Structure formats: C-alpha cells, structure tokens
C-alpha cells in the first residue's frame, strides 16, 4: 500500500487540508510527519504543504529549509520519489535549493487570495502527467511572497528543458499583466526539476479538489494528485 508523508513545520497551516484531500478525496494513505523527523523510510512520496513556516520570518521558507527533515526530503528527491511543494512548500523547496529561482514579495505589496486560471506549459513532471499542455485549470492562490524570479538568461534553459510547468493566464490561456496576480516573471506559477519528480507551485491544488469548494464547481486540483498517484503505482 502506498504511503505519502505530509510534513508539518512549525507554522504550516495547509497540512490538515492536504491530508484530508489525500485520505478522503483521493483515497490514499497520507500521514503527518513532524519536521524533526529524521526518517522518511517507508514513504513513497512527500508533500510540503502551504502555510507560514516560522511565520515567514526573514523570508518565506528559508528557516524551514534548514529543518532536520529536509535532509531526508533531499534524499527522496535524489532517489526519484515524487516531491511536491505547495505555496509555502514551494518556497521551502526553492530555499533548500531543490528548485531554481526565488519567490519574492508580490509586486502589489499585498497578500492576495483569489481563484486564478493556470495554463499547463509543460506536462513533464510526475504531477502533471494527466494534463495536456495548453489546458487551462482553475485553482486558488493565497500568498504574500509568490513573485517568481529568475534571471532572464537562465530562464531560457528551463524552458528548453520544459521545467516551466504552470503559468497564470486568462481563461483562454493568454498571459497578460491583468492575469498575473503577483508580478512573477512570465507569469510563472510552478516549476519542476530536470528529472520531473520535484514540483513547486504557488496555487493550492488541495483547495481545488472538491467541486463543493469551487466557485466553478471544478476539481482540477485532483489531477495533480492523481498524476502523482498513478506515477507512484507504476514505480
């Protein structure tokens, strides 16, 4: 039976939500794992949930990136297990050096919580296998430091390797200033590593997995989890 670990850092706050969706919507086993754990053996995937680890102090994700459990997360990433960072989890993966770039304060200088349209730019990652490039998904965002930044010169390389996974767009899949909620370069909302087993994204798939909670009666977030589950069962 496959098992997913959802890491709890001090200040994580989407930990219970993520476990709820995995257990009750996706019907797979997921456990909460306290950040002091130094052993993730027995888990087939790891999710770093959203929230405010260490209150976003100094910079979102930086302090959590030095937690004991992150050594194990890095090992799992190297061994090819799926590693997913959602919102604060994405920030932690970036700060831990598992994903490229930086997440800076939103250019509006305000926290932003709303539903956005996301275009699938690449389905390279193990979390997007069930998506087609060009699909437009609906998911909510909720963050203060989500402005994805990377030097333009480096970005080309990541496009070439199809690591840019999701972008903020309008409902037709077009990038514009209006559709970019935080000032991310090129409207980038999610990026993966070269191997495709580590993905970070600012939007919250766990908040978009039940039609009841969606203003559009959609459940696009499930596709992220079901892609992961399919990949795990094939491993």
């Amino acid at each position, binding site marked *: 039976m496959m098992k997913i670990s959802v890491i709890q850092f*001090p200040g994580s706050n989407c930990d219970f939500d993520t476990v709820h*969706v995995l257990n009750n919507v996706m019907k797979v086993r997921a456990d909460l794992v306290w950040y002091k754990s130094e052993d993730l053996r027995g888990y087939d995937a790891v999710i770093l949930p959203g929230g*405010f680890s260490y*209150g976003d102090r100094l910079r979102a994700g930086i302090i959590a990136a030095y937690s004991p459990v992150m050594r194990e997360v890095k090992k799992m990433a190297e061994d090819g297990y799926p590693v997913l960072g959602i919102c604060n989890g994405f920030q932690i993966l970036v700060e831990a050096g598992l994903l490229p770039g930086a997440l800076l304060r939103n250019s509006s200088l*305000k926290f932003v919580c709303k539903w956005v349209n996301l275009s699938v730019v690449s389905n390279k990652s193990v979390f997007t296998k069930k998506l087609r490039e060009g699909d437009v998904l609906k998911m909510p965002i909720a963050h203060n430091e989500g402005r994805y930044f990377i030097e333009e010169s480096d970005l080309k390389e990541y496009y070439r390797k199809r690591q840019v996974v999701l972008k903020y767009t309008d409902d037709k899949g077009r990038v514009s200033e209006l559709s970019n909620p935080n000032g991310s370069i090129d409207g980038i909302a999610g990026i993966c590593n070269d191997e495709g087993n580590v993905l970070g994204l600012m939007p919250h798939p766990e908040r978009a997995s039940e039609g*009841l909670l969606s203003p559009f009666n959609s459940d696009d977030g499930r596709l992220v989890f079901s892609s992961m589950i399919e990949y795990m069962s094939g491993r």
Partner: protein
Amino acid sequence: MVVQNFIFVELTEEEIKEARRMLGREPNTLELAMIDAEWSEHCSYKSSKSILKLLPTKGPRVVIGPGYDAGAIDVGDGYVVTLHIESHNHPSAIDPYGGAATGIGGVLRDILCMGTRPIALLDSLRFGNIEESAHSRWLFRHVVSGISDYGNCVGVPTIAGEVEFDDCFERNCLVDVVCLGLSKINDLVLAEAKHPGDSAILVGGSTGRDGIHGVTFASRVLTEKSDKERSAVQIPDPFMKKLIIEATLEAIATGHVRGLKDLGGGGITCGLSEMADKGGCGIDLELSKVHLREKDLDPVEIMISESQERMVFIVEKGHERDVCEVFEKYELPYSIIGRVTDGGNLIVRIKGVDLANLPVKIVANAPIILRKAIEPDYIKRLKTVGDPGIPKDLSPVLLKMLSCPSIASKGWVYEQYDHEVGIRTVVKPGKGDASVLRLPNGSFLAIKVDGNSKHCYIDPYNGAAGCLAEACRNLVSVGAEPLAFVDHLQFGDPGNPEVFWTFSEAVRGLSDFSKALGLPCIGGKVSFYNEDIVQKMAIKPSPAIAAIGRIERQEWITTMNFKHEGDYIVIVGETKSEMGGSEYYEYIHGVVGGNAPKVNSIKEKAAMDSVKEAIRRGIVKSVHDLSKGGMAVALAEMCMSGGMGASIDYSKVPAENLRVDEILFSETYGRFLLEVDNAHVNELLELMRKRVSFGVIGKIEEGSLDFSFGDKRLLSISIEDLKDAWTNSISRCMGEV
C-alpha cells in the same frame, strides 16, 4: 516591594472606599492595582451589566451562554461551534497595524480557551471618509494589513465582514473582529479552577512592560497624549499564536486540562481571579515563577501586564508532565506558576512572602454603577430635517451610489485575507449575503457580521434591532436558519447621560427583536469611551452584530448572482419612505436625519420565513437581501455578480405613494429579491400570498440594468458601467488604480 510612581487611573474615591469596606482593611498598593485592573469598565461591565440583563440568552441549542470567553451552540451530532466578538478600537486608532493584528490575536484566544479550534474570522470595520482624509486611508490600509498578516499566518480564514465609512470615525476607527470555533461537545473546556491541588501553568510569551494599563486605556477617552501614554505598544506575534493554538489543542487531547483562560485585558490578575471565582476556589500564585522579558519588572507590573500570546492552563494534579511535554514539542516557554486551593483567595507570593491576599469574590465582582440616561436633543432635531429634491437624472446617481465606499465592492479588503484555508469555505466573501462553511457532520454553517451606525445614530432602538435583522436576513438569503448571535456595543463615554441613553435604547431594541425572533444572545462585548478630546466627538452608536445559522442540506445553499436570462425577479416586503440614515441621503445629498427604518418584527419574520421556505422547496435560484443603497443597489449587485442585466418595472414594487428615488434607494428593512424561473413562479407567488407583500418586478435580461415605470423608461446602465463604478472604487480611493 518597589512600586514606582504607580498611578491609579480608573478607581474612583467611592470605589476605593467600597474596596476597603468589602475587605475590612486597607488594601496595599499591589492589591489596589489588582482591583483597579479588574474593576475597570473593560473587565467588569460595571456600567452595562444591569442593562445587558434584558437580552434573551436561552434556547434549545445554547450550550454555553454569555459569561464565558465565548458562547457555544450545539450544531448536531456531538459538535458545537463557539462564537465571540471583540474590538481593538483604541489600540488601532494609534497603531492601526499592531492594534488590529493583536485584536485578532485576542479573539482567537477567546475561542481557543473554550477548547475549540478557531475555524473562521470576520471583521467589522468603521473608518472616516477615505475619499477625503489621508488619516482615514492610513488607518484603513494598516488595519486591513494587520488583520491580513495575523489571520493568514495563524491559518484561520477571514471569511466575511463589513466596512462602513462615516466622518464620526475619523479619529476613532472601530475594529471589531469575530471568531468562530469548532469542537466536539465533550472537548469543551471552561475557564474554571475547581479542583484544589491542580496546577496553574502559564504558557507562551514572556511577561513584559508592554500593554501595562491596557484595560484602563480602553476605559477612557482618547486624548492628545494618547500616543505617548502607552508605555509600549504591543507587537503582534502570529507565529507564536499558531504554535499556541496547536499546542493547546494537543494538550487538551491529553485529557488533563481542567481549565483554560487566555490572558487578555487585566493580565494575570483578571485571568486567575476570574477562574478561581467561577470554580469556587482560590489560587496560590508564586510570582517568581512567571517568565519575564525584563528582569526589573515589579510585582504590580507583572500582575497587570497584558503582554500578548499568553494562556493559563489548569492542569490535573500529577499530570503536569503529560501536558508540559506538548509545550516542549512546540518549544513554547511555560512555567508552573501556582496551585488551586480550597480557600477563596488569590494569594500572590514571591519566594514565600505574601504580597497580596484578596478574596476572588471581591476582585472578580466590581460594584455595579447605575448610570443616568437622558434622551439627547439631537434625536428630535434630526427627525424634522427636510427632504432633498429629486435629481433630474438618476443614472449618474445610481453609479455614484455604487461607487460610495460603504457600498462598493470590498474585494480590496477580502482579497487580502486568506478566506480558503481550512477548506471549509463553501460560499466565499462577495458570493452571497453571508459566508457558508461546511461542518464535519455534513451540515453547513452560515455567518455574517453587520452594523449600521447611520441608522443607529438617528434611532438607536430601531437601528440596533435593524443590525440584527440585517444579519439574520443575510443568513436567510444563503439558505440558513438563524441560530444565535453575539453583539458588540460601541458607544462614547457612559458617564454622559445622553450617550448612556443611546446605549440603553440600543440594548432594548436588540432585546425586543431577538425575543420576537426567538434568537438567543450567546455573548458579546461592550466598548465605551469611543470619543476623543481632539475632535470633541463621540462616535455614532455602533453596535456590531454577528449571527450564525444552520443549513442542513447542501441543496439549500443559495447565492446572489443572477443565474438565467428570462427568469423572473420578485421583491418581498413593502418599501417605505424611510430615508433617514440612508446612503442616498447622506452620500448623494449630504442630508443627515429624517425617518430611519423601523423594524417590524412580525413582518420581518414573515419575510424571512417565506424566503426560507421557498429556498427549502427548491423554487428560487438566487436570493439577495436589501440593505445599504436599497433596491437599486441590490439589483445591480445581482446583475454584476451574474454578469447579466435586468429590466425592472418599479411600478410593481409594493409601496405607498413613494417618490421614485425612495423606491430605488430606501433602506426599509424586511425585504429580499428573489430569482425564480417560469416553472416555479406560480408556486412561489402562492407561497407568498397572504404572508407577505411582494411584487414581480421584472426579468433577467442581457446586457444592462433598466428601470421603467410601466412603459416609461427611467434609466438604463450597462453591466460594464455598473462594474466599473462598483468594483474598483476602493482601490481608486486608495490611489492604486
């Protein structure tokens, strides 16, 4: 004991005499300071208690009524929700960011210390004129960001609220926050110390000089010196709060927590004496055990400091380790500071030497003050204000109404709040009249907070009742059955008989109306002294009412956006010439006064019941109640959120000889707008007949919102123009677009 320059701000000569008489001796300085904190208006309700008695507090679902940190309501299947409302007005007026943030911190603690997990926050805000005043914009911007930073970080969604602007709040902004909690009924914990031998454990932040005299600060008017008066402002620490929330719930799960209290106003003094008083015990306190921020705090300061992020746990004797291990897991500072005794006294010691020894009965029960109430002259004067003329062209008037900051979209506010975390929010801010959460037992809970200072100013009795009526209408609109409410009563100086009259009237109005509806009040808060010497102005009477309701079935959840072109639009309730305090009078014409809307509890109830029944029978597709801006604004909101227009014949609106502007903009209570399709319209009319006044006033159409009288076209505005006026008005005021 060193007590330097300690000034008693609050106790009057008589009160000191009374304390002396009750004790039968002279209290020492520390004891006086403790009595001073606990007998402050803020902690003791000494002016308001006798009036608050009017409110009904019992009901079949009430598990805990007023008197505890929060009220609790049975929502079925072994679950309860807890509800509380707090304000942080004075601190926010001088430090809007920190004041509002620590206000959230405070109300979260109230919910947490009932043993319940905070699952939602709401905010009810009042500021001066943000179109004109840079000071009001500054307050508004920083209050919202304080709430946003705190609520988001602790992971509790802020799911609803309201904002009103009025010149009277220029200096005294009002920042009310509401928190909702959830737990199993068996996990409720009370703020009681009733088992001698149990330990009192202080957890969380260290005790420091910040927040000394907070309660006495809140129990006075603001002066020029208020900025400098605070020894130090309180710095919010939401990260620590998040750890306290998780640690507290985990500690309760050990089964050894027998009492719990947050340390808010009045600090350790109020926390311990109230718990001992409720449990019929005493507490021995060893002051040297309190973890301090500054070493040189003297005992008075330690006893009254209101440093943030602190909780006191009463833990079963012999099980201290089990509970403390949880605090260690979260790396939270804690110390065992005292023991519950079978005496009735709070004894404060330092290394074995007694510093204070007071019967908790005396500390926790301040003598009541009976205040004089006199009807203010202005009330009669305002009734006779003359009606303004009717503007020639009402199109620009409607657009201006939509851009009025009190009416315009509050997206600028609620998009700064994480309203989704917890994945319970089914109806989100802006989508319905109230927000709706799913509960673990498969049912749903609706919640909204409302206030209307302009109505309350002209007619405090009807205005206050009207706030409750509006909150209930908002619940009914989303398909809920109202269950209970909490109220926050905000007024000026209660020593002023005119202010006190408005206070008593407001409570009377609330009480009469809630009794008529059979709706219990399960808690609340009173905040007096909302006035300032600089402007010599008291705020308008400003009750804020938060109400909750239950929706048993998912199909009943109803939103306000128009759904289908061709459907009929029905208005429920009669429109009256009640223009006093309306946004139309004040914002368009600059007229303050006239007849404010009156509640008619029989008609209000009939309207709510019919709408509820229509929803439950599944015959209406969208519902919106009428409030600020009246019918025209409500219709525009339904059009904008549905992206559809409507064509309205306002001759069909039930009303007696009203002017056109009155029909469009009157804020008469007890009214709703419904969308019903062709297949169900007759069933709906049948249901309404004999119960309420109603009219089929038009149909949903493409493109624009049109008003005519019979065949005569009055105005027509495109949805884009409506949206432009309404959507970005607040961002425009804030200089962002």
